């Protein structure tokens, strides 16, 4: 069983209430959480937060979720191992194709129910490269 305390999660959402709900819920599960309120900010904290998993809102002013995802996946050190979960409803086929193009690994629909969020995170944790 993986120890959640060793899986840092970066929550990116310009809606503070949403970000806060996710943060509280996930912290209660034992994950270390960093919150960023924009794509730019998220990219800025990558090096210090060193997230294993990113929860990334798609609709944000400035750099949107797609652009942020693409840039995160290009990170020279973390890009390889990072798992990115888009927080959006990907109903349409082309949305999902778009998500694949940017390198996203999973998505969770908004508005989400929290147990679903937890399940989504767990299945992505299982996919992380095993830690030394």
């Amino acid at each position, binding site marked *: 069983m993986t120890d959640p305390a060793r899986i840092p999660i970066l929550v990116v959402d310009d809606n*503070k209430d949403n970000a*806060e709900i996710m943060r509280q819920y996930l912290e209660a599960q034992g994950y*270390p959480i*960093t*919150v*960023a*309120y924009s794509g*730019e*900010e998220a*990219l*800025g*904290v990558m090096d*210090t*937060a060193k997230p294993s998993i990113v929860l990334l809102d798609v609709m944000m002013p400035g750099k949107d979720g797609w652009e942020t995802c693409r*840039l995160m996946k*290009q*990170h*020279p050190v973390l*890009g390889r191992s990072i798992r990115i979960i888009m927080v959006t409803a*990907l109903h*349409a*086929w*082309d949305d*999902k*194709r*778009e*998500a*694949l*193009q940017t390198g*996203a*690994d*999973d*998505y969770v629909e908004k508005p989400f129910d929290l147990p679903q969020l937890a399940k*989504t995170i767990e*299945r*992505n944790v299982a*996919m992380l490269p095993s830690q030394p």
Partner: protein
Amino acid sequence: MWRCCRANPDRARVTLSVLLTDSDDSAIAEAVAQLETWQLSVKHERDLSLLIEQLPDVRAVLITTDNPTAMRDAVERARERGIPTIVGSRDETTRRRAVELRVDEWYRIPAPSEEIAARVRSAISRTIPTGEALADRVERAEYERMLYDGLTGLPTLPVALERTRSLIKERGEMVVLYLNFVRYSKIEEIYGWEKLDAVLETTASAVREFLTDSALSASRVTTSFANDDDFIFFHVPLPDVAAATDPEITTLVVHLQQHVASRIEATHGEDVGALIDIYVGRSHVYYNPKVRLERLIYRGIREAANNAKSVEQRERGRRITDLKDSLRDRGVYIDYHPIVVAETRKIFGYEALARGVRRSLRSPEVMFEVAADGDLIWELSRLCRARAIEGMEARLTHDELLFLNVDPHDFADPAFTESEVKQPHRVVIEITERTAIKDYPKFKERLKAFRERGYRFAVDDAGSGYAGLGSIANLEPDFIKLDMSLINCIDTNFIKQNLVASMVRFANDHGAMVIAEGVERAEEFAAVQSLGVHLVQGFYLHRPIRHSGPEAAVPEAAPEPAAT
């Protein structure tokens, strides 16, 4: 009442970190005692924001006041100085306020000292830069990406130029090699971007490997990654070493091509290997103090690039001749790639994969590209079909199906008719989703005629575009062959799993079967199996089986299928 307590006096002398707070909660003092090299400084809330500026060693601020103005002032002042903030809140209102102010950490009072210590540690480990500091950091990261290619780690052109500048001045001359890798974009189209990234990485490491072992290692070489798939070498010989001569470079280039090609083939398989071509162009740059150096080098690069282009042009011409010869002596053979039932792994049928006998035409993609160049598409299609059907009799047992690739344009070929095969019910015609169909009603009419004779249809590369399921439904296929990019790494990508699951549902609703192509690993096989995919094709299960190998391709006197 306000006091200062020393947490760890011995260590404190080494490095001093002060936690500034407005609370005399003993849990905070205990927390600081747990943090090595930290000291606590307790001040009144109204002095916090002022002291953040005045005390030199403040590394974090812990605020517990429920006075909104005092909290905001302290948080903002701390942020300006890049100092992380932690808020201890007694009620929900204060907590919300803290969140609004975007403090780095918060906790609910009362909290055990361990938690407070953890909050402080966590706050200092991930201070979020804001304002200018943030913009600066993002911009810097963007610049770094511009200077070095993330994938290959190679410097981009501006960096390479700077490095070369002093070398060429000193030596007076330089050789520029321009490596033009052709059809890398095809890899992305067929296998998805993940594959292309992997191939580029292999390419870069093969190039590096080669350089350290080659004659060029006795020179100073800077490699640069120019475009999405081109490399540039700047070769400046070491002092006292003669520059590589033209024949030397020619030999070198040949070896480099071979080395890269064999590495790619070994790592990514024969199909990918056969797809790629490398054309190398070269130029000589001589230092001229009258001309600006950048200009000299850019000219050199352009000349080398043009040179690579003309090498490619010559090669294209040569290949058209090769293709004409192949059409004359039927120089095409067929690999039969088994398609198995996902559940039982029993062979269900074979996809016929045409390959050129001549080495330069080994890959079907290359063959058809050359055919398009030389206006020979129908002729080549006819030969490939004829070869596949010939082999079918010997290769296939009676209940196995032959999957035959047919380009939508072939339906306009008068020589391609429903009576091409004796047992049409054993043939599945694969039509790619990638080619746009011009005259749709006419095309559907032709399909109907084939269907009535007993032929079945498969949509190839399904899901490759953004179009989704609608365009697939239009063709009423019996089989849906998933685009390979959806299968590559499907075991770790849940979006791909979701797409494939919806494709399977769609197929089940329409009485079609889904084929997963390009299954290369056990994990991918397990994933598509569990998603309910009906049929599977890929190296993990079977490699293509050669029926009529090159040796069997006996030149004959042009037995072209008769045109009506």
